């Protein structure tokens, strides 16, 4: 009973961290009404959308015991695909869907390398990081792809097109998808098998789970989210930029890890990852408001990542796990 309570408190860890970050900057900035204003909240949330959508897919991969390093490149590639479609006069829906489909395709190819060629996920997706980036530059002829105005450009803006929306449409899309995927991971057979795979792959195979097919599904579904993140990225820039989002995969992985995901698999939650993404966004935003140089943010985020994982390990020891 006591342990249960303690576990529950610990599980709130990332959320407590988020509150601490917000309170700290609200006080430290000396102007809490500005830091906590609706406008600033819009700024932070709109900035978080790309990492948050990516982190939904990454949670799936990391819980299954894998990793995907190609996210930043996939965001650039799918952003370019979406922009090219819009420029060539495709309907916005078709352009967005093809970007998302390209994301899934890239994930499927990585997973084929992992399952059929027996390349470890780190290397397979490291290779894909280069391939997707190169493909993006190739498609875009190494330059920006300008897009005509459409609703796609309004997805991740700071101030939503209609006041009743309160936040950018992308924020609501990310929130909805996060809720859906949290449910999928927790309650569906697919989701529980993702956890089983990450928890003990050999046992999963012995229990009759088709491990290879499951991996193909996981990386493809994650790719859908990376593709959507690419659309969000394009929406923010209002053009397709093949050189954008370099290193974003590390932010996405950090969000999952801060939210309680374990790189050895079997652990992680969508809501935790969302909080992880918000922690980093509020930290960045707060540092900017304080007028701190960017190197301070970088150091702080580095410290937070290590501290979050250290606290997580400690929680395991305390909770009597393993």
């Amino acid at each position, binding site marked *: 009973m006591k342990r249960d309570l303690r576990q529950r408190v610990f599980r709130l860890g990332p959320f407590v961290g988020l509150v601490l970050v917000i309170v700290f900057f609200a006080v430290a900035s000396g102007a809490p009404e500005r830091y906590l204003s609706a406008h600033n909240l819009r700024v932070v949330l709109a900035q978080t959308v790309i990492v948050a959508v990516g982190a939904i897919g990454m949670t799936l991969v990391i819980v299954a015991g894998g990793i995907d390093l190609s996210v930043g490149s996939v965001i650039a590639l799918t952003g370019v695909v979406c922009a090219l479609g819009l420029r060539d006069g495709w309907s916005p829906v078709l352009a967005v869907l093809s970007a998302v489909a390209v994301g899934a395709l890239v994930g499927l190819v990585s997973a084929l390398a992992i399952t059929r060629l027996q390349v470890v996920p780190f290397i397979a997706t490291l290779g894909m990081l280069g391939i997707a980036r190169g493909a993006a530059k190739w498609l875009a002829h190494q330059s920006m792809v300008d897009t005509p105005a459409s609703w796609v450009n309004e997805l991740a803006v700071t101030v939503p097109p209609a006041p009743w929306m309160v936040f950018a449409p992308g924020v609501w899309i990310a929130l909805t998808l996060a809720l859906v995927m949290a449910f999928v991971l927790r309650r569906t057979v697919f989701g529980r098998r993702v*956890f089983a795979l990450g928890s003990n792959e050999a046992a*999963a195979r012995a229990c009759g789970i088709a491990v290879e097919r499951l991996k193909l599904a996981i990386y493809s579904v994650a790719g859908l989210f990376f593709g959507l993140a690419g659309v969000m990225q394009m929406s923010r820039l209002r053009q397709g930029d093949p050189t954008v989002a370099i290193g974003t995969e590390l932010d996405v992985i950090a969000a999952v890890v801060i939210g309680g995901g374990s790189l050895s698999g079997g652990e992680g939650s969508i809501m935790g990852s969302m909080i992880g993404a918000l922690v980093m966004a509020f930290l960045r935003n707060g540092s900017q408001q304080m007028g701190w140089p960017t190197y301070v943010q970088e150091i702080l985020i580095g410290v937070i990542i290590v501290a979050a994982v250290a606290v997580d390990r400690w929680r395991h020891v305390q909770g009597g796990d393993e």
Partner: protein
Amino acid sequence: MTPALRLLGIDKRFGATVALDGAALEVAPGEVHALLGENGAGKSTLLGILGGLLRPEGGRMEIEGSPYAPRSPREARDRGIALIHQELSLFPHLSVAENVLVGSEPSRRGLVDLVEARRRTRDVLAEFGHPEIDPETRVGQLPIAARQVVEICRAIAGRARVVLMDEPTSSLQRADVERLFALIRRLSASGVAVVYISHFLEEAREVAGACTVLRDGRTVATGPLASLTNEDLIAHMVGRSVDTRFPDRASPTAGEAEIEVRGLVSSPAVREASFTLHRGEVLGVFGLMGSGRTEMLRALFGLDEADAGTVRRGKREGPARSTPARRLAEGLGYLSEDRKGEGLALPLSVADNVTLTRFSSASSRLGVIDPRRQHAQAAERAEELQVKMRGPEQPVRTLSGGNQQKVALARLLHQEADVLLLDEPTRGIDVASKAQIYDAIGAAAAAGKAVLMVSSYLPELLGVCDRLAVMSRGRLGAARPVAEWTPDSVMEAAIGT
């Protein structure tokens, strides 16, 4: 009556090692069938083939008269075969219910039916006499014995027609063993056939009606257990023709005591071990899997934590708890039973592997290694042990198992350790390499080294050692001269009837 399960002429090799050589097994519906044999006789391989984890090279299998050739564990399960593994194969991060039902989760349109999952798990747990286990608990938080209960419940929940159990009692308390036996009887009464591997004959007699004895991958005896005495069974298990050459050991003149171990305890595997090892002697330790033989060596070498005990070297006496670095400095050398996992650095060269524990022999005072000296030293050791290799720069990974093992032993010799702790020095290697390793062990003893050799292969212990002690259920018995032991008396001590 059609047998529930029939296997004929099953062959299986792992590289050069023949694991099964025409093994046969026949189990009637509702029968509890004990599968007996020494370590390495092929019991686990046979169950692995039945469970779809391994594929045989030859032979025929039938379930209830129809041909059976599973290509995956899934197919085995679909045909009604449930395998309970020797090593626990659970999902520590998932709940008990999820572990029990994984692979066959109750669901509607992809959604797990949590209420149904909980109900089914609770039913199975209650049936097994463990209603106190909460289906919601994460398995990682359960004690080991409870985890095995979960594992067994998984097999039952799968509605199997044949349940295969590989040493299911090795981590259970006596009360849990009773419950397991009651459950096995209930399974059997409902027509489910159970194949049961155990090292303990008394246990087998308690629960099984029939038995099959495997030796060297062949079926050497089968029939009702009641018709065979323990002596018969042991004779079948060990009665091999010794076809290996052992070195002629000049009867050793017992040297001074090199190392004295008193009251070594390393929970939970080692409950009490005391022995004296003399210079120029080979002391053998026999034990079955799970007897604590490996853990005793590991604790002595500082790889596992020793909870109690003392170690005396000459006049100096110290606590048994130590670290590998300290033990190395004290002149102990350790050969791991797990050659690939912790014995060798596989991608590195023979030269690096041989000189790893004593780089100083080939390096300057500043720690710069002279590759020529290093290679020459390694080549010399390798030649002593007749390692077949292109040269000392060859990666160890590319050598055969027998040659890899010789490289591991060469490291100990290069280290110039006074005490050699050898854990299964000939596991999984060919006969010729075995003989060379026996020669090297004999030569080391003749040169005044003290050798402790742990093995589960009795003939080699009887052939190589001067004295022999038997470890059973965590306790090391008294060491006696090899001449005073017979294969049967060793087995009896190991089985601990």
